[in-house]
């Protein structure tokens, strides 16, 4: 009898415990979501502020109690932004530098990765290790001398100076070599027996198989061109040769230090838009590429 009572009591306790557990579980779920949404708002807020500010008039922007949505939408800010900083030229330069350097860089990377992955030659491993070693050195160390070198070459203020010094990326070669190594060597030997040339084999077999890596490299390289600041700032002297980031920073502040914030925000939105579009469509490749590279640009 008392045994039975004990058992029922025990069961009741268990039920109570599990009910309490359910409550804590629901509470912690809610807290988790609340936290994650709060972070999402913090992450998104600058973008929201950029867009609504870019559509306000300067007077509305300066109100001491800010409006969370523009009273009157001023698309004209975007036109003004485009004219004030000569964004058309900046866009053109950035696209030319980005596309040309990406294409050339891909060719160099594919050829080098192929040599390191498929061909046997003396000193291959030592050379590869030495190349990887240079990745530890901060880029600023190279910049000091490269700045003198391009000056000596007479490359200042040309597209060449913006493209050539950064064509070789050891990291991309490394990434692609790893990818190439996964392709069975038998395929290459079979192709050799059939008399296929290396270039044809690369083009027909290796490149299609390594396409995801190549797409990641392309995107990272393009983003790099879009975001590069220091080198273009050093080597471009005329407004006609500037890249987008260089032209952007000071274009909307007048001599007295007053900044036309709405127009400035419109320019920032224009510059950010292409990156977002690329991200929207190629999210998978970007995130995969980034998780393996760990470098920005």
């Amino acid at each position, binding site marked *: 009898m008392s045994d039975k009572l004990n058992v029922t009591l025990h069961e009741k306790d268990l039920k109570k415990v599990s009910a309490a557990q359910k409550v804590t579980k629901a509470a912690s779920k809610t807290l988790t979501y609340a936290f994650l949404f709060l972070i999402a708002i913090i992450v998104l807020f600058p973008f929201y502020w950029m867009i609504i500010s870019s559509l306000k008039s300067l007077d509305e922007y300066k109100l001491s109690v800010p409006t969370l949505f523009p009273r009157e939408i001023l698309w004209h800010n975007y036109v003004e932004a485009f004219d004030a900083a000569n964004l058309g030229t900046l866009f053109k330069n950035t696209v030319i530098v980005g596309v040309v350097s990406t294409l050339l860089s891909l060719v160099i990377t594919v050829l080098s990765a192929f040599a390191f992955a498929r061909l046997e*030659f003396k000193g291959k491993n030592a050379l590869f290790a030495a190349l990887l070693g240079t990745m530890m050195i901060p880029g600023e160390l*190279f910049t000091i001398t490269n700045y003198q070198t391009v000056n000596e070459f007479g490359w200042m203020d040309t597209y060449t100076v913006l493209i050539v010094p950064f064509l070789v990326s050891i990291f991309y070669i490394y990434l692609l070599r790893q990818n190439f190594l996964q392709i069975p060597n038998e395929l290459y030997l079979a192709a050799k027996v059939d008399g296929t040339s290396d270039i044809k084999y690369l083009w027909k077999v290796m490149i299609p198989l390594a396409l995801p890596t190549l797409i990641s490299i392309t995107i990272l390289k393009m983003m790099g061109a879009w975001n590069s600041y220091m080198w273009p700032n050093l080597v471009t002297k005329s407004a006609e040769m500037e890249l987008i980031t260089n032209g952007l920073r000071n274009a909307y502040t007048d001599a007295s230090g007053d900044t036309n914030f709405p127009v400035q925000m419109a320019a*920032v939105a224009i510059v950010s838009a292409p990156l977002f579009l690329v991200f929207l469509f190629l999210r998978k490749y970007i*995130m995969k590429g980034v998780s393996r590279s760990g470098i920005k640009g």
Partner: protein
Amino acid sequence: MVESKHKWKAWLYLAPAIILLLIFTVWPIINTLHMSVQEGFNQAQANIGVTFDYGFGNFQNVIEYDYFKDCLFNTILLCVLTVPISTILALVIAVCLNSIGPLSRFLQTIYFLPYVTNSIAIGMVFAAMFNMVGNNFGNENELVITAGIINNVIEFFGGDPINWINAGSSYWANITVMVVYIVWNALPFKILILLGGLQSVNKQYYDAAKVDGTSRFRVFSKITVPLLSPMIAYVVITGFIGGFKEYSSIVGIFGEKMGPTGDARRLNTMVGFIYDAIDTQQGRASAAALILFGIIFVVTLINLAVSKKKTHY
């Protein structure tokens, strides 16, 4: 036959890369070392035949130079503040994201957005958010008009507005803004890596902990963190390396003057110091660059040593 044919072919394929590397990577290493040990080296003078004494004067000058110490201090301070904050925050966010089912992918995409931005451009947005627009700035007591949304929020909660980045702002207000911006910028990469690590953790550990009735905090500190330690080590190391090269985020917020109006260059960093000397004092710039390399090298070694001890593979 095939082998020997390959040999010259391999070098042919490597030729473009090797030529470019010789000019833009190997030569700079040699030249930087050479310039750094010529006291007071200056390229323009060298071009007209001036010679410089060999010695370690450049290093000594740089280290004894107060302004370099300021730059070094700024760099280290930003590193020491932003790397732990962003790593811990990213870890908590990643664990939370991993614990929810629906919306997890959607939220992850949102969190990744700061990565695909131009750090100068979005720095300008942050500058606008922290900025004050009004006639009386410069004197903290007279702040009447503010349009900086951050100050509006502070006032909404009953606080006093702070002069964050304008003329007359305090050093620590400036640093706070930089920390907020750098952390905001650093989160996407860290969340991506840590979440990737979490998703590959064996679920059995968690099931065992559940059976034992282990508390959530203990699960986090005794299972999640040790299992994630290789990824944590990775984001901390890359965070420090990136942090020691901090530069463009400061240009984004403060412009090329690297400080608030009236106190330009106050927030300059190691990289900024090197760039300032690049035109006229190549000896000093080279010495500073080598010191930067040395610091990054040592910090990486320390991190590796610590993580080897603490890392649970």
